[in-house]
């Protein structure tokens, strides 16, 4: 069929989510095109004003676009060239808006059931009891939204979106309005949600730490465009991207728990590049977890360090060096093929004569549990 690009693309990868949207609003232009995995959490990362929210609204069918193409799991929702546009209320998606937007005239229960009641019976895949349990909503069910705290509101909003039995969950900075404590309260629910339901999530954020905790895939958004995308660990160790300049820049390691050390309260984990000791983690042997290694916590030596207070020293090879400021450089290294970042002074880089291909010892001062 001529012009039916959705159909053509869907034959290539049935499970993917593909989008291409173009629109102009005053000075702002959106021209975003990417394909993202049909499972797991994809983070849309960019500065405010880069078009993240607009892109989500396009996906939901809430924006008038010049050109739009969107398919999820081989199902085409929009293809302007073929004249195809599925109205927002006919798209099986869940949208968690930044400011919650609960219906003020409905109690929590009615809010949760709003989309569910409008979902055809044979498409309902989520049970109210599961959502109430997952998000801890039981004590809130008969309350009105204006009596809820910010964190409670966001939990209800997430529940309401999930009760819509979505094929895709869109989350627009669901924690932006919350303080650190509330964020900490929501995060576990969000992580549960990710593991309990096999619904792909597109998660907008400008907080790299949030993304590291929950995302598997990262799409970079800049000035209305989506120039780069890839698996989170790969993207985090790219030194040519904006995130590399972030104070919290660093790599993410996927590791396996192999041993607990009760004497010194440590846990030994393994990844392709070697073994690491981390503070005792409440995990079983064999569990996989994500570790966050900040670039600022990695230092490099040419000789094997001896008699050092730093427990974790691994061998690695320099793959790239990028100057970040007149005083600092970011060095990308690989240990067993796994990328890591080290932020060091330009003087050290010069003194050690670091360049691609050089073998080094990386000292990891500390790691943070990513989840």
């Amino acid at each position, binding site marked *: 069929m001529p012009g039916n690009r959705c159909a053509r693309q869907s034959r290539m990868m049935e499970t993917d989510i593909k989008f291409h949207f173009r629109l102009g609003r005053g000075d702002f232009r959106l021209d975003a095109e990417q394909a993202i995995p049909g499972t797991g959490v994809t983070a849309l990362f960019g500065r405010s004003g880069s078009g993240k929210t607009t892109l989500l609204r396009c996906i*939901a069918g809430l924006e008038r676009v010049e050109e739009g193409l969107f398919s999820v799991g081989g199902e085409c929702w929009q293809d302007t060239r073929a004249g195809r546009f599925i109205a927002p209320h006919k798209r099986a998606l869940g949208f968690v808006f930044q400011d919650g937007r609960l219906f003020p005239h409905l109690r929590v229960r009615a809010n949760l059931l709003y989309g569910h009641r*409008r979902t055809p019976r044979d498409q309902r895949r989520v049970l109210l009891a599961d959502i109430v349990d997952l998000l801890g909503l039981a004590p809130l069910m008969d309350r009105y939204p204006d009596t809820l705290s910010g964190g409670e509101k966001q939990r209800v909003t997430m529940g309401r979106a999930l009760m819509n039995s979505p094929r895709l969950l869109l989350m627009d900075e669901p924690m932006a309005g919350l303080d650190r404590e509330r964020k900490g309260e929501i995060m576990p629910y969000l992580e549960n949600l990710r593991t309990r339901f096999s619904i792909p999530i597109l998660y907008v954020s400008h907080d790299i730490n949030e993304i590291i905790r929950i995302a598997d895939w990262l799409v970079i958004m800049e000035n209305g465009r989506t120039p780069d995308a890839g698996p989170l660990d790969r993207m985090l160790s790219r030194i040519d991207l904006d995130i590399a300049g972030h104070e919290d820049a660093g790599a993410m390691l996927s590791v396996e728990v192999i041993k607990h050390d009760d004497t010194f309260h440590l846990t030994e984990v393994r990844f392709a590049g070697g073994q690491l000791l981390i503070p005792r983690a409440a995990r079983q042997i064999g569990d996989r977890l994500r570790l966050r290694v900040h670039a600022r916590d990695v230092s490099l030596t040419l000789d094997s360090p001896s008699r050092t207070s730093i427990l974790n020293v691994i061998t690695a090879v320099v793959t790239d060096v990028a100057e970040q400021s007149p005083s600092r450089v970011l060095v990308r290294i690989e240990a067993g093929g796994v990328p890591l970042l080290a932020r060091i002074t330009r003087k050290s880089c010069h003194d050690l004569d670091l360049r691609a291909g050089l073998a080094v010892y990386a000292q990891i001062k500390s790691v943070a549990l990513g989840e």
Partner: protein
Amino acid sequence: MNPDLLALWITLRLALVSTLILLLLGVPLAWWLARTRSPVKTLVETMVALPLVLPPTVLGFYLLIALAPRGVIGGPWQALGGNGLAFTFAGLVIGSVIYSLPFVVQPLQNAFTAIGSAPIEVAATLRAGPFDRFFSIVLPMARSGLVTAATLGFAHTVGEFGVVLMIGGNIPGETQVLSIAIYDHVESMEYANAHLLSAGILCFSFLLLFVIYRMNAR
């Protein structure tokens, strides 16, 4: 029947019928005004607001002409088989609807505007179609606006005088409403009767508004 009771009955009937028609017309009109970006919006808003500033006699005068057998409203009405409109109850309803329209449209338009597009978009992402969204989200959220609009429309119709006098005349049992009956009593120096009706309307208006403000304050 006592002519005063008859006037009361006609007044209430007129106010009820007019309020019903006002809501049926006013809700879609206010919704359109709240959402549209059409250039005719300002024109329509101006026309709706005119009865607020026009002397009722001016409005009544033009209505009288329009309702006449060959007028812009009366002509088609009679062509469709209706009887004359001027000096009839139906004519009064038309006059009241036009006269009270701003009192219904403006609170509704404000209520709809205050809701904004956010809740409507949320409902759209939750599988609610356009009509569903209007009835499940917009109307309940505009509840206080609706109550205010209905009350003002009703009360304003009860209290109208000039327009009624121009287009309805003063036919007991057909077009004589309370405000006109009061005027008649005063003209005939029957102050006791005028007091009774006036005090009745005063109390009624006060109570109605008080109840509404109480409801909206919650």
